[in-house]
């Protein structure tokens, strides 16, 4: 776990090449505690790559990524999670054959370090069950707790996805297009849901939908051609002429 008041996530001069193609160059980025940052940019700007670098899917070609005090670039996913970084997936990845309760239970188990257990007795298991219940209640998914995940509606599965991401108790939450494939109304509900679930936590997300971005983020970084073009508050970004250029003559996506 990271500690202290320092930044939660720091990227220093991070670059990523796939063969001869340079996807990201000289990315510098700092997320302070409690900040909610959105990464936006036109298609092909390198958002997904950056996201995958931070979440540990790829290792950067050069540069340093720190979570709190510790270097995390190139670290395997499970260790990243144990250090306090958790991510959601753009294509919903829930355990379809299990109940909603079991889905979240697995995440809470991991937070308590119970990754190899054969027995389910002792105080810690009562805590795990209790915290699972609490989280489900807090997410207002109580009525769905016993439903098999694959039978849930799409937006319910997305909500479950967010719940699992939060349930490992991370310092930093990465959300990959949390409202992709949703209708206007569903997306608006999702924004409120994410806001409630991630209250007081640090958030980094990639999102296309500007309503969602402005609804959730308190700072925005704009990525263009593999570099960070601008970082600032939503209002500042909206008025930045460079950003409007990058987005094809000002039409915001």
């Amino acid at each position, binding site marked *: 776990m990271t500690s202290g008041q320092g930044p939660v996530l720091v990227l220093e001069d991070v670059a990523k090449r796939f063969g001869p193609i340079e996807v990201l160059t000289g990315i510098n980025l700092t997320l302070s505690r409690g900040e909610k940052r959105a990464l936006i940019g036109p298609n092909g700007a390198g958002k997904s790559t950056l996201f995958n670098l931070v979440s540990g899917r790829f290792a950067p070609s050069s540069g340093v990524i720190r979570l709190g005090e510790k270097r995390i670039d190139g670290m395997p996913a499970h260790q990243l*999670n144990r250090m306090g970084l958790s991510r959601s*997936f753009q294509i919903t990845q*829930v355990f*379809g054959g299990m109940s909603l309760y079991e889905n979240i239970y697995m995440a809470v188990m991991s*937070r308590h370090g119970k*990754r190899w257990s054969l027995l389910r007795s002792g105080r810690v298991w009562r805590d795990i069950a209790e915290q699972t219940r609490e989280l489900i209640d807090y997410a207002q998914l109580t009525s769905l707790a016993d439903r098999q995940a694959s039978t849930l509606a799409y937006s319910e599965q997305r909500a479950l996805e967010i719940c*699992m991401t939060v349930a490992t108790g991370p310092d930093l939450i990465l959300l990959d297009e949390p409202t992709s494939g949703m209708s206007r109304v569903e997306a608006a509900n999702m924004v409120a849901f994410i806001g409630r679930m991630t209250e007081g936590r640090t958030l980094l997300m990639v999102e296309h939908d500007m309503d969602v971005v402005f609804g959730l983020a308190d700072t925005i970084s704009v990525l263009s051609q593999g570099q960070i073009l601008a970082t600032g508050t939503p209002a500042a970004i909206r008025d930045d002429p460079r950003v409007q250029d990058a987005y094809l003559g000002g039409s915001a996506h």
Partner: protein
Amino acid sequence: MDPKDKATHSPARAALLRLVPLALLLGALVALPRFSDMAFLNAMVLVCIAALYAMGYNLLWGQAGLISFGHATYFAFGASCTIMTMAAIERGSSFPTPLLPLAGGAASFLMGLVAGWFATIRTGVYFAMITVAITELVRAIVQRWDTMFGGEAGITSIRMAWGPIGFQKLIDVYYFTLAWTVIGILLLWFLQRSPLGTVIRGIREQEERVRFLGYDTHALKTLVFAISAGVSGMAGGLLAFTNESTNVALYEGAYSTTVLINTVIGGAGVFLGPVVGATLTTLFGYYVANLTYYWLLYMGLLFMVIVVCAPRGISGLGVDAFRRLRSDAPVPWGRIVRQAAGWLAMALGCIMTIELIGAVVQPSYGALARSSGVAWPPVRVFGISWMPASPLTLGGIALLFSFGALMLRDGVVTARRNVAKLAEAIAGKPEPGP
């Protein structure tokens, strides 16, 4: 976990509904030696071994979604190490005889840790290929290392008495095997129900998700592989204990194939499915293998039919039938009878064809034809003499096949519909693949 049937109102009643048949079955198995002759008891010992082997194997498949094509290695290694321990007891070691299967299980577990670590680096079909290659690797070494594994002659030992138990009579061996099989299956049951079991199922469904929840999936899969190998090794140990011998032929592909076929026929998706498959093929093999040379060919054909027409195996069909019985939907007797008749006709046609061809291509048949002066001497199938070239025989076979096809046409249509439904259920869940 199961969609709630409306008839199972309370969990207690559902549990009772499951436990009572199992208890009855166990009671019948315990009482069996009173009613059974030696031959059947002998067959049941083999059934127990095959069942435990298949259950250990299916931990990997049914729970973790990994299909091994080389499990014979762990079965055989368990047998080898058990026989070596038996030899050590014979020489005066104080290892208690009743714990012998554990020696085999532990050895295979350790081997499974190493092999599993390599095999689970990759998933899906790569995993399958690596298991094949590892089996070949071990086999090549074992077959050359005669002083250790006994070569083709194998190693023999005897079951030493332990306290009051002599282990000399078949009935002792039967109870011993049955007890260890039940212990092994209970172990697997508890593993499945444990928190670890939940994580393993999670790996099967969404491995990446599990990793991003903080679980080291490679280590977990290695552990599952090793446990699966260990239980298979226990089964191998039971075989060594029963036969009082092993040899390197156990390491061959046939024993990997058998367990895979048993699991598919029984059904990988139901906990005790592999037991069903192992029981059927072992008993059939025990009694039918004497009647035909082509038993393995029939088994292979049955395997392919099951893969195409009933991917969830016999126990899957059973579960579906049970659900249907408990629902209000009418039983489609007409369709069931048609299907049964169709498959029976197909099977008879296949058996006739294969047995006739098999007899005709024998060199001895050619010699018979020359000595008797008849171009196509008669062949005995089902205790009846058939003229292989007569239009009656050939026409009869053709009739069987066409009748079967006609009866099954309806079945094919339903099967297609089921396939579509299943595909829909599977969609969204990525298959283990490249």
